[in-house]
């Protein structure tokens, strides 16, 4: 099986007044053809930077000192602007977090969906037919009528379906979902996840699903990458990582999932401390400042300890396979 998307040792720095902010450090993520890979981490772990880097839409003050991003065998960090525009929307596309702001408020749904197909040949009626088909596919009632509707006339769940329809319209090989359910309520969340699963099967695209919600990741993804402060700390098959987490951060993250609580508590569990200063990260393990198990050895770069086949954790204290 070939890889639809491969991120190899990617670092992204932002130039700030305090110096280079190391938003991503040596992150490697592989999304095989037709699979769903989750990225989980708290706010500020570099999820948005990762998406922008994948699309090559980083802000002007960002630099990529190292690493490669290969989309279907092509290095996007070396692609020129013209080629990038071709890739975006056709080979890789995104569903954004907030459906309320991800659609142009003054253009009708149909017009926006027609715009996405501007590279396609075909008459307006033909494009509208394709748009309506895709709207029907994502479960929007009266798809033809909805083409004339404006975003504000649709509910949040409907808008997210429209945004997914737009992202899937050109049948991309890789679909990035940037917390697509965070702004929705729980019942809609389940529906959108089911929809993404179905679409994935139908279009056969690979999905990179980014979320801070462990339950959603467990539900949807084949593999998961746990990120902390711009570093991938653990990666493996979803069931394996959640059942037998190797990295102390993953363990804490799972312990803090409010979904695990059996009874009412005054304070939700939290990981004490805060994110390290990314302009001057500590040497060695990035999590040492908040880790219970931290010892002197943690000041040296942690090895990637294989926990099980295909499952590693970057921690000196993680028990290797078989122990």
């Amino acid at each position: 099986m070939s890889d639809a998307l491969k991120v190899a040792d990617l670092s992204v720095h932002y130039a700030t007044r305090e110096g280079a902010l190391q938003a991503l450090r040596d992150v490697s993520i592989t999304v095989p053809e037709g699979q769903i890979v989750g990225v989980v981490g708290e706010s500020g772990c570099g999820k948005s930077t990762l998406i922008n880097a994948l699309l090559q839409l980083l802000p002007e003050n960002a630099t990529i000192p190292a690493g490669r991003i290969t989309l279907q065998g092509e290095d996007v960090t070396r692609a020129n602007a013209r080629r990038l525009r071709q890739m975006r929307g056709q080979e890789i596309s995104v569903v954004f977090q907030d459906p309320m702001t991800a659609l142009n408020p003054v253009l009708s749904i149909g017009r926006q969906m027609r715009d996405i197909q501007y590279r396609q040949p075909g008459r307006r009626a033909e494009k509208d037919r394709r748009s309506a088909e895709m709207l029907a596919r994502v479960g929007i009632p009266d798809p033809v009528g909805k083409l004339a509707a404006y975003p504000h006339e649709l509910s949040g769940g409907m808008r997210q379906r429209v945004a997914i329809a737009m992202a899937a319209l050109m049948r991309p090989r890789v679909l990035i979902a940037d917390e697509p359910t965070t702004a929705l309520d729980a019942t809609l969340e389940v529906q959108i996840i089911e929809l993404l699963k179905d679409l994935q099967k139908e279009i056969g695209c690979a999905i990179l699903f980014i979320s801070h919600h462990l339950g959603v990741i467990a539900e949807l993804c084949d593999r998961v990458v746990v990120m902390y402060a711009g570093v991938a700390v653990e990666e493996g098959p979803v069931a394996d990582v959640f059942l037998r987490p190797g990295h102390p951060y993953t363990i804490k993250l799972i312990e803090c999932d409010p979904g695990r609580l059996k009874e009412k508590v005054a304070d939700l569990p939290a990981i004490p401390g805060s994110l390290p200063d990314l302009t001057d990260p500590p040497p060695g393990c990035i999590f040492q400042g908040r880790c219970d198990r931290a010892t002197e050895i943690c000041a040296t770069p942690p090895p990637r300890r294989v926990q099980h086949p295909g499952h590693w954790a970057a921690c000196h204290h993680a028990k290797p396979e078989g122990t």
Partner: protein
Amino acid sequence: MSAFRHSLLGRLLADPMALFAMVIIAALVIMALLADVIAPHDPGAMNLADRFAPPSATYWMGTDNLGRDTFSRLLQGGRIALYVALTAVTISGLIGLVLGMLAGFGPRWLDNALLFFFDALRAYPTIILALALAALMPRGLSTVIIVVVITSFAEYGRVVRTQTLSLKNSEFILAERAMGASFGRIVFHHILPNVLGPFFILAAMNLPVVITIEAGMSFLGIGVPPGTPSWGATLKDGFDYIRNTPWILLSGGLPLILATLGFTFLGEALRDQLDPRLRKTR
């Protein structure tokens, strides 16, 4: 029928305020266009025997100090007012639109430079600038238009810049870029339609302002050349002879008030209708 009711015009007609505004504007436009046909007298013809004639069947709004028919002069004045307003608003709007989008999209130094330029122009009082320019340029409508353009394009520029900036960083523009939209496509298909709503509202609101600036300049004697029947000039004539003949002043002010009200109401109604988020129902 229902398609019409949902169109912009249909929705405007359903709004009593907008209907009122459009009736006034339509009346003004028709009177200005057909001024030569409607006018009972030659607006320039002097008739010294009938100086300061009160309103009558012959002179509907009386005559002025030279015996010229006020009503005929007001019709001609409507032409001048509308011509100046539309030309000046179009020119300053276009300049503002281009500069505003440049500022919004351009590098920071260009944005700062343009903002400084806008602020410097806006800080200058219109009438003082008009006086200064009138001293340098010949009296005439083009001077009036130039004064209005210089003093008002900065306002469009600022509004367009602010809109562009906030739109540029909005999530749907990021989404469009993520979908592979080119720069031109983003500017013309996504930013421009979002900017045009506030832009047209500002333009409609600015029309009456321009009409009053023209009238004000003519009233001060730095606008139209002497003898031209602009509303401001008529007002000035009426003001000079207010003791003898109040009707000249009253009839000179009436179209000014009507035009201002009409365009202001229309601008407000447009604002309510053009912003799809403010629309009540479809």
